[in-house]
């Protein structure tokens, strides 16, 4: 009797998680396993049944001249964007945090945060026009101020496409990181730096020795999110630079999409998707191991 009750009790508990577990297994957990251990080892063009080909896709991957390029591009963009976002997000949060006027603070916060909740696709369309060499707003402005004499070929030169994507990315996404930092700053008890302020510490000293250490958990959180986000960058190269000029902004995500859904080379695309996942897994684990060295969790 008691045993039966206990079994019934456990079953009710499982009922609560059953739907979540079902959809997770089907569309996330199971899907990644199928991708890793089944599809990566097949040749599959959707029309014919998948054909098992062993490690063929992986050796193709190491011979594909595009593989090196897309991984180089993705890592390059990830490193640049991660650094820029980490620093600018923090500076903006410090700025808004330091603003004493309530109305201005609300205004700045809204202005900085709003772009990060709008659709990347819709604003990317607009930005692509703003970057136009001859008719774009950005070149018009820079010429008016007198910084440049001739329009910058933002999207048609390899040299300028990276700053172009970075400027857009900051505009579009910095609000998220900014908000995490702002929350982090607000969570630091004022008592932590009041004493130092009375003792005559300069703002820079307070930042360096009090705020920055207490903010390390937030910095770690933001950098983890940024790493995962930038490694799967798709919308920007797809909509703004179209992977170009040449292949200079073709990312892993874009290449997976093209292989799978333009050329219907599902098996090979799965292999690249597996490599992306493994790379991200290694980087995330590395980040978690490294955090022990620099993230400070105890308060006071």
């Amino acid at each position, binding site marked *: 009797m008691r045993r039966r009750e206990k079994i019934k009790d456990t079953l009710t*508990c499982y009922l609560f998680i059953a739907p979540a577990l079902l959809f997770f297994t*089907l*569309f996330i*957990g199971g899907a990644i396993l199928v991708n890793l251990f089944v599809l990566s080892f097949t040749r599959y063009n959707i029309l014919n049944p998948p054909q098992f080909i062993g490690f063929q896709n992986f050796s193709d991957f190491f011979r594909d001249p595009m593989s090196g390029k897309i991984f180089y591009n993705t890592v390059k963009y990830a490193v640049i964007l991660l650094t820029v976002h980490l620093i600018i997000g923090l500076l903006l949060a410090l700025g808004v945090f330091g603003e004493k006027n309530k109305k201005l603070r609300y205004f700045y916060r809204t202005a*900085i945060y709003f772009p990060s909740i709008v*659709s990347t696709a*819709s604003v990317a369309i607009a930005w692509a026009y703003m970057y136009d060499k001859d008719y774009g707003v950005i070149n018009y402005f820079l010429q008016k101020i007198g910084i440049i004499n001739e329009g910058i070929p933002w999207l048609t030169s390899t040299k300028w496409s990276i700053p172009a994507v970075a400027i857009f990315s900051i505009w579009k996404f910095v609000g998220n990181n900014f908000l995490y930092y702002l929350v982090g700053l607000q969570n630091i008890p004022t008592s932590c730096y009041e004493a130092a302020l009375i003792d005559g510490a300069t703002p820079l000293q307070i930042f360096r020795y009090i705020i920055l250490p207490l903010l390390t958990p937030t910095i770690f959180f933001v950098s983890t999110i940024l790493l995962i986000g930038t490694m799967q960058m798709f919308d920007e190269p797809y909509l703004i630079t179209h992977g170009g000029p040449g292949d200079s902004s073709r990312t892993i995500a874009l290449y997976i999409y093209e292989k799978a859904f333009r050329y219907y080379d599902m098996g090979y695309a799965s292999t690249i998707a597996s490599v992306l996942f493994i790379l991200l897994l290694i980087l995330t684990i590395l980040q978690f191991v490294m955090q022990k060295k620099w993230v400070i969790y105890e308060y006071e």
Partner: protein
Amino acid sequence: MSMNKKTKMVSSSINKERVKRIIFEFVMLCVAAYMLIPLLWIFSTSLRDPKDSFKLPPSFFPTSFKISNYKRVFIDVPFLHFLINSFTVSASLTILQLIICSLASFAFARLDFRGKNIIFMFILSGLMIPAQSTIIPVFLLIRYLRLTDTLWALILPGLTNPLGIFLMRQFMLTIPRSYDEAAYIDGASKFDVYLRVILPMSKPSVIVVALITFISSWNDFFRPLIFLNTYEKMTLPLGLTVLQGYMGTGNLSVILAGVTLSLIPTLILYLLTHDYIMKGMILSGLKA
């Protein structure tokens, strides 16, 4: 003499403070301008005569009012369909996901059963799986279920949101145990406790998750691009890129009218809920 010197010093330090503050506000205003000018340009240009779309100088405040651009968005393309589709997907995904995820969060936070921690870690690991690494199996599954080119293809894969489960669980953990215990003594079932005690008390975290889900689904481009082919079934971001291809560059104003319309719901949602975003983030322990 010394008195004089002192006032001089104080006033010079006040001046220095003032200069610092002016520089600070100037920098902050430049930042705000950088964030707002693109939006103003989109809006002002959307009201220009299409043939003047590219005419320089650009305007950042409306100089002409071609409302007809907005009409054309609805007449020339099935914009209303895009809008309804986006709304259907985002709203149903948000509601269904909240039900499914809050049930799971409740179990992870308030119930004890075998395998709880392992299952929780399993679901949490989904946080670092990139969308591109699961898209092919998901695409094949949706195809097998004959759901390609339907809105279900966008709803089903998003029903379990590991981040949502994590955030709501974190919040539920902070509610004192005595609430559940009191309810159980009164003879409440587990489901009663979930529905009448814990869920109402977790409102801030539920709202944050609802917002994150709604906005990211409203803005999603990758999945619609893969699953939808028919014009009438497309969601807004995808529909806009199709609109762009179809209109060509000669009709920039009309395209930007579409862009402006797609931003309005997000803006309204933001204005209604921005207080919750901030508070909810603090409360959900998002200090990491």
